[in-house]
């Protein structure tokens, strides 16, 4: 009885270590004011360009693949909001720690290193909600159109699906950062990955506009589950009762990537070389 109680207390305290890591990253990132303004500027340019593109494409057309112009504009706006929230830092952080040898300190702490980076990235993501997503949402609502969800249920499912999306994206990044343990420098890997996600996730152009053959090929990849799944639910292209299947697939990708990451991590662990004294 006493032992069980103790474990509980310990469980709580160690949770609070990850919580504290997230909180501190949140506060630190909120203090980067310049970054906040530049990112708002770029996001505004991107989203306005997309809006005009879609407005032009929809000229004289009522709907494409069952999606109306206002839905498409909501899709584009929400896509930019999601992108500003999906700021994953693990590749950068891990590469820095490895090339400077500071990874040694991480391996010395009695907590999980991967969960540490996840906690920090969650902290950063939450800071992005406050400093990047919210201002953009306000500007869009006032000057373009309020991105209204298809239904309250759609909104709830969207939130859950977007969390899954974040985890998929984070796991892909974490898997790529593991390569650092083998090659030290990731070089352009991150850019390549970002490019692939940009093209194949439906972030800019929804995949239903692609030729059928290509759509089928993209379907077996994880990328569309990062953007298109939550966005389609949000605009009602996928109705709540149909949402269960894509969300289960999201969940399956999370499980697959998590087990790959655990396996890869145990291999990387033995390869750790610490640079410098």
């Amino acid at each position, binding site marked *: 009885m006493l032992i069980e109680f103790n474990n509980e207390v*310990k469980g709580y*305290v*160690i949770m*609070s*270590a990850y*919580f*504290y*890591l997230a909180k*501190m990253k949140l506060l*630190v990132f909120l203090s980067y004011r310049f970054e906040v303004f530049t990112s708002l500027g770029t996001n505004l340019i991107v989203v306005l360009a997309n809006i005009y593109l879609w407005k032009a494409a929809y000229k004289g057309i009522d709907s494409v693949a069952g999606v109306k112009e206002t839905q498409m504009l909501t899709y584009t706006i929400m896509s930019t909001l999601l992108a500003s929230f999906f700021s994953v830092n693990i590749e950068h952080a891990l590469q820095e720690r490895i090339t*400077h*040898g*500071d990874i*040694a*300190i991480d*391996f*010395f*702490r*009695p*907590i999980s290193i991967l969960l540490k980076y996840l906690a920090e990235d969650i902290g950063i993501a939450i800071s992005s909600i406050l400093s990047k997503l919210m201002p953009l949402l306000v500007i869009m609502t006032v000057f373009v159109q309020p991105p209204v969800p298809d239904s309250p249920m759609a909104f709830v499912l969207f939130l859950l699906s977007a969390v899954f999306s974040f985890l998929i994206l984070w796991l892909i990044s974490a898997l790529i950062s593991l390569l650092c343990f083998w090659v030290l420098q990731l070089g352009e890997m991150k850019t390549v990955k970002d490019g692939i996600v940009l093209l194949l996730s439906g972030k800019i152009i929804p995949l239903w506009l692609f030729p059928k053959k290509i759509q089928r090929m993209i379907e077996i990849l994880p990328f569309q589950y990062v953007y298109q799944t939550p966005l389609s639910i949000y605009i009602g292209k996928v109705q709540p009762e149909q949402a269960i299947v894509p969300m289960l697939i999201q969940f399956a990708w999370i499980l697959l990537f998590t087990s790959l990451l655990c396996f890869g991590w145990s291999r990387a*662990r*033995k390869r*750790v*070389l*610490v640079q*410098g*004294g």
Partner: protein
Amino acid sequence: MAFLEVENLVKEFTVTKKKEGLKGAVSSLFHPEKYKVRAVDNISFNIEQGEIVGFIGPNGAGKSTAVKMMTGILHPTMGSVKINGISPHKNRKAVVGKLGVVFGQRTQLYWDLRLGETFELLKRIYKIDDKMYKDNIKMLDEVLNITEIIDTPVRQLSLGQRMRGDLAAAMLHSPTMLFLDEPTIGLDIEAKHSIRNFIKQINERCGTTVILTTHDLGDVEELCKRLIVINHGKIVEDGPLNSIIERMAPYRYLVVELASPHHNLFHPAAEVVKTETLRVWFKFDKSRIAATELISDLSKTYPIRDVSVKEPDIEDMIMEIYKKPVIF
């Protein structure tokens, strides 16, 4: 069972040879030429609780690599480490919770945070309860004056202040064993002094076992009763400071003060190592000739006013290590 047991520990690094020029770069991309460096070469020793052990040896001897294996950070190529009977490699989280480490050349503090915020984080990571945390902060304040810098952002700390912060961070969870890898590197005399005092204090007050790698002979002389001397990855000496000096440097110096300047002083059993106008240093092996004999020989031939015998110090010992041939 000793507190720390290191057995036949080996670490090999695989290094890719960089070839020169563009042609070389291309060829090493396709046919990388790899070779192995044995940074730590089969070392074994035991350390008991409460000891302060100095780990010394020239640059590149393998000290840091050994420390990183003992603290579970690096996996050994061969051999084992056991702390309190448990391997930090097989059971990382169970062991490292009771260890502390400070690397003089890098910090474990968060650049973005204030020092106190790093402490708060460590309090959570090591599950330190409020009472122990308070007591330890109080103790660390007495030894390191920590409250003076606790609200300063880490990036604004001077090197000496940062090191004080690092040492405090390593002691917050009352580790039973503390590893210090060149903690005094680059510090001024005053900062060095306070760090030596800190090591002495925590060893006396908390019974913390300390393993200290250093280049600073002052550190060793002031702190370590036992030395482990390492060179080219191998342990060349292990024992009390005095007896190691005795063994590595089994000679004495005879300092002779002359009544008038004299050139070309000579003795068949001793070597002149240094001369000033009226002073000459003879180095002699005390198993070959006794000091008294040397003095009486010299006084027969030269006008001697005064003599003194000097024992070799740790610096002489280090010089001997550098000179020692490498046996592979």
